[in-house]
């Protein structure tokens, strides 16, 4: 019997060894393998997935010795895994990172390589101004953006027409629109407040229109949230909540749930990044009659406020980084440069992603909403980077909570400003 027990153990051991033998894969001689991680799974982001694959295929065709291996993860899992990998110094050679606050810990830990040589060389003057800068720290740029979004307010033209509403130019107009819709039992604005960043858009715009385009950037950069306009914007937001501007129970709803109220024409307005535009233009799964009803407008100005209507909330989304510890750093950089150049126009025409590189709208064929937005972007005076991206990770988490509390009327506008100030000063 003892022998039997030992035999069982031997069997287990053998099993484990077989399994591990299957798992290890050997690299070979001269060939260069670049590992790349991205967040566009085929199941949801087929167009981006295909475009990445095309670029890789053509790069591999041009560079016979290079093999590019990809690992694809969903957004949130991607972020978590990136952190685990860097915690044990095993980042992929090439990957995607977000700007500013997200980037900072990686850069200070010396995980990302500086890409200034590319910016001075092959990619000189290719980017829309202000986009690559969002990935800069201490004068060096550590990632190069592949997408750029701004946040317009989308609206349902049919609902607006039914109640004789015009696109609002000023905050008073806007409140009037909200009031009319609310009085008629239509949800004026749909908001997925469970994810704090959605509410943050509204707050950011009010700060911008009230206190001017640079107020928020300056407040976050100097860790000083004491400007009274910052509390006043919070107060205006709570007034909007009091008017019944937002859908019922918004603080418990995800962005997807909230979006469906707009898509099902139960809500009049929805503020979201331009990544939604394909759903209102090219997405074959969305009925054309719905697409025809959707328009967008600039966030209205506040009378007496310092802001103008041609500044936007938005910013570059993900950008390509090269790992500082990569064994094939030079090859990886070459690939990144190639990728950015190939991505350019193709991303907007094939994948509906607005790239951070300049696009000549006169030469390409796109749905009108895309062209309009690209032109808005071209003439924008400023794009203010998302507040949560600007903030350090700890403060960003706190910001989400405070935005929920503000919208949920759990704190006063003054406390909101005070607590934001505290979390910025904590320096995490």
């Amino acid at each position, binding site marked *: 019997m*003892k022998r039997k*027990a030992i035999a069982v*153990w031997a069997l287990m051991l053998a099993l484990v060894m077989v399994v591990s033998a299957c798992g290890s894969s050997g690299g070979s001689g001269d060939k260069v393998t670049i590992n790349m991680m991205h967040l566009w799974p085929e199941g949801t982001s087929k167009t981006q997935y295909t475009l990445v694959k095309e670029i890789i295929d053509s790069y591999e065709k041009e560079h016979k010795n290079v093999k590019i291996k990809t690992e694809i993860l969903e957004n949130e899992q991607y*972020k*978590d895994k990136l*952190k685990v990998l*860097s*915690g044990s110094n095993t980042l992929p050679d090439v990957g995607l990172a977000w700007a500013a606050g997200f980037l900072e*810990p*990686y850069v*200070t*830990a*010396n*995980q990302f390589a500086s890409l200034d040589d590319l910016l001075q060389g092959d990619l000189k003057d290719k980017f829309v101004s202000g986009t690559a800068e969002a990935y800069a720290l201490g004068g060096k740029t550590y990632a190069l953006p592949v997408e750029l979004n701004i946040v317009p307010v989308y609206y349902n033209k049919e609902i607006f027409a039914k109640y004789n509403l015009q696109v609002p130019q000023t905050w008073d107009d806007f409140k009037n629109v909200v009031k009319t819709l609310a009085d008629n039992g239509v949800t004026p604005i749909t908001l997925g*407040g*469970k*994810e*704090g960043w959605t509410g943050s858009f509204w707050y950011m715009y009010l700060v911008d229109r009230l206190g001017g385009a640079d107020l928020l950037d300056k407040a976050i950069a100097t860790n000083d949230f004491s400007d009274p306009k910052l509390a006043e914007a919070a107060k205006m937001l709570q007034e909007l909540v009091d008017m019944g501007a937002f*859908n*019922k*129970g*918004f*603080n*418990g*709803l*995800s962005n997807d*749930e909230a979006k469906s109220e707009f898509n099902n024409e139960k809500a009049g307005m929805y503020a979201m990044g331009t990544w939604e535009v394909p759903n209102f233009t090219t997405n074959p799964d969305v009925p054309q009659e719905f697409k025809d009803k959707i328009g967008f407008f600039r966030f209205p100005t506040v009378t007496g406020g310092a802001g103008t209507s041609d500044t936007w909330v938005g910013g570059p989304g993900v950008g390509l980084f090269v790992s500082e510890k990569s064994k094939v750093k030079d090859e990886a950089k070459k690939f990144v440069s190639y990728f950015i150049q190939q991505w350019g126009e193709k991303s907007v025409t094939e994948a509906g992603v607005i790239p951070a590189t300049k696009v000549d709208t006169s030469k390409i064929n796109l749905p009108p909403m895309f062209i309009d937005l690209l032109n808005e972007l071209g003439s924008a005076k400023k794009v203010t980077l998302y507040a949560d991206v600007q903030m*350090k*990770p*700890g403060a*960003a*988490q706190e910001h989400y*909570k*405070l935005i*929920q*509390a503000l919208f*949920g009327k*759990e704190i006063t506008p003054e406390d909101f400003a005070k607590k934001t100030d505290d979390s910025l000063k904590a320096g*995490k």
Partner: protein
Amino acid sequence: MDKVMSNKRIIALYVLPSIILIMAIIYIPIVLTGYYGLMRWNGIGSMEFIGFDNYSALLKDDKFWDSVMHSLVFALLSTVTLALYLIVALVLTGNIKGANLFRKIYLLPMLLSSVAIAQLWLKVYHPTTGILNTLLVSLGFSDPPAWLSDPKYVLGALFVPILWQYAGFYILIYYAALKNIPNTLVEAALIDGATPRQIAIRIKLPLIMEVIKVTIVLAVVGSLKYFDLIFVMTGGGPNGHSEVMASYMYRQAFKAFDFGYGSAIGFFLLIICLVATWVIRKLTETKDPIQYS
């Protein structure tokens, strides 16, 4: 007998592989975690030793204590609901036709992953189109609460799916334990004229006391480190009103990039679990485990 049953080589053969495994995969990592708790570390860069700063900050962190309270509420509610599961298991092991079928059906929710369960319950609780509020409106409540965004209701609303999800698990354990009681004992009691209720309380319950104790520990510890459903359904919101220890730890370590602080929370969570288990053991202490005779 005693000599055979205390053969050291056999004991080692039976126990050592498992001990080595949990040492390597559970204990060394958690000790490292306790050690990271002494560091200022964002999980990426270099560590800086800061002594007990993270732990003392934790003791003063109101948000952390809120999350502890929420976890304790879940633990308490879970323990109380064990009684419900036990009653169902007792009923099913009585002479009920179709008991086998019922038992199988009750376990079905356990088979679903938390992602699926969360999606389902989000649709139950949706403030306007959800099953629950549609029902309430048709019953005449004109303005039913928005369950997951109202600080007053969110904890209770989150507990119901947990209760529902784990029903099958505990019923299965109780059922198997009750079925393990030799029929002769029950038959003898029946002959003595005992009612089913008397048999349940006087014979069956004492015999499965060890199993009940184990399930209490499982329920409490499971609740204290519960994460999945809460994280998907509310993300700890609104404004932290449904944050529990594990979600707070995850947020600090992985989202706020404060791995040192997150580790301190993880270590503290372990200590709270230990204390809770010790308290349960003390409260449920009996002399000797009962043996079938």
